[in-house]
């Protein structure tokens, strides 16, 4: 017996692949989505009787393609010229300039094209490759469904009207364009880190897909490793009341050992290639944390070395702030505070939280309390606020 749950699982797993193939066939995203949705509607009707076919994705793609052709023929009798034009675009695949030939790779480069607004890139990627509904995406990003629907419609219209191409960028543009794709996936992950955990799962799924499609790009592997290692700490990251548990206080027994093993293996594999990048280094930093059985056993010297490397590759005030945290462990809080004070991050709550922590460790309680207040005022996360308020009470009570 085939239930709707099976079909839903196939939908989630195969929607992106099916849409990607149909976009190439039809040359239009909306037509492709309609055809694939029709195919799934047919599956819901047929599969409970016939059972799931041996290759569900193949069945969906073939059915969608047949539906689309039928439809274009039907419309041909009504509007011959329009249909002719559509079919004219269909058979010749776009010129291939990149090394990889998977349609999903083309689609993700289209979705993450720099000519689209960052929010639109995220929404399109989740919709077309992730198979999320507009309502699901809207809920995850806390915007009204109508707003998200309009964002998607506009983005798809721009792709069509401005002719954003459906192809993997040529080699010369690939590094830049790949950065853009990775940024979209990491943005989805970070959105889920403080919000809807379903987004983290979706980002990991996209990360796995990219790693499968681009096995020779170490930064792709690095991003996947970074997300897996971060995700491994999810069970320990919040307490029963939903408050954030800082890394040193987490119950490491609750970390997900399988995700850690996979993440660490990926870190080793991509660093071996000798083409380090910001995602790989950040993954390596997380791997060092994962190695430590207790917080005290953390190899902070190794972490500091990695932050030095990250600073050289991708300098910036946020990296400098995180590096200062490592400096505090290696050289003491006074040395770290000196570094932190030189940073212009007054609007960033973590800057104040780090400063507060260093002042507390230096016994400067009054100043520390003031900094905790600033961090509490600036954070948007309730889970984070709870832990900051606790720290604030502790430092005031001394």
């Amino acid at each position, binding site marked *: 017996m085939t239930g709707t749950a099976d079909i839903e699982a196939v939908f989630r797993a195969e929607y992106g692949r099916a849409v990607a193939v149909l976009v190439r066939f039809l040359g239009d995203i909306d037509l492709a989505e309609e055809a694939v949705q029709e195919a799934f509607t047919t599956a819901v009707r047929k599969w409970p009787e016939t059972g799931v076919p041996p290759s569900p994705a193949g069945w969906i793609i073939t059915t969608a393609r047949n539906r689309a052709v039928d439809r274009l023929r039907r419309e041909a009798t009504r509007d011959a010229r329009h249909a002719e*034009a559509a079919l004219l675009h269909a058979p010749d695949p776009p010129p291939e300039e990149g090394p990889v030939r998977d349609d999903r790779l083309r689609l993700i480069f289209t979705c993450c094209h720099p*000519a689209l607004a960052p929010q639109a890139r995220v929404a399109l990627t989740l919709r077309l490759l992730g198979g999320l509904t507009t309502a699901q995406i809207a809920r995850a990003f806390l915007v009204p469904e109508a707003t998200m629907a309009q964002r998607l419609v506009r983005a798809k219209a721009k792709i069509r009207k*401005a*002719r954003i*191409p459906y192809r993997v*960028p040529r080699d010369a543009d690939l590094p830049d364009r790949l950065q853009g794709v990775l940024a979209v996936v990491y943005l989805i992950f970070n959105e889920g880190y403080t919000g809807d955990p379903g987004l983290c799962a979706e980002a990991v799924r996209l990360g796995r897909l990219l790693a499968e499609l681009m096995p020779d790009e170490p930064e792709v592997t690095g991003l996947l490793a970074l997300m897996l290692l971060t995700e491994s700490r999810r069970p320990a990251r919040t307490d029963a009341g939903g408050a954030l548990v800082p890394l040193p206080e987490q119950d490491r027994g609750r970390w997900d050992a399988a995700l850690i093993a996979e993440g660490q293996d990926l870190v080793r594999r991509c660093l071996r290639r000798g083409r380090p990048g910001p995602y790989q280094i950040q993954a390596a930093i997380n791997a060092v944390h994962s190695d430590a059985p207790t917080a005290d056993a953390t190899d902070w010297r190794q972490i500091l070395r990695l932050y030095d490397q990250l600073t050289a590759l991708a300098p910036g005030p946020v990296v400098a702030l995180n590096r200062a945290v490592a400096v505090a462990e290696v050289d003491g809080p006074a040395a770290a505070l000196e570094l932190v004070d030189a940073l212009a991050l007054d609007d960033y709550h973590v800057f104040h939280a780090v400063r507060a922590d260093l002042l507390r460790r230096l016994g400067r309680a009054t100043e520390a309390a003031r900094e905790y207040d600033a961090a509490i005022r600036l954070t948007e996360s309730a889970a984070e606020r709870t832990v900051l308020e606790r720290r604030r009470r502790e430092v005031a009570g001394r």
Partner: protein
Amino acid sequence: MTYYLLSVVQPTGQERPAPAELERIMRQVEEFNQELRDAGAWVFAGGLHGPETATMLRPKDGDVLVTDGPFAEGKEYLAGLCLIRAADLDEAMDWGRKAALATTLPIEVRPFVDEH
């Protein structure tokens, strides 16, 4: 092939470059136009006099009102334009990048409506 308009955007009130600098820019723009011609992408290009030279014509009750000045005083104005043919937005953006470097000004890339 799609037609794209590359608009050269001039921020209002920005000082004109020094004569030597201006000459260098003009040379760069001419080289850019030649590259477009050589690639078969060139359709038309030209610079515009400032908005203070503009005249507005507005339809009103079957008649047309004439006023001095531009359509709207904005933070920026159209300093020049370049009409090109390109296969897709990536190609048009490549030309747009070159135009931005040659003119030293921001470039807006917009597709024309397909005629079929």
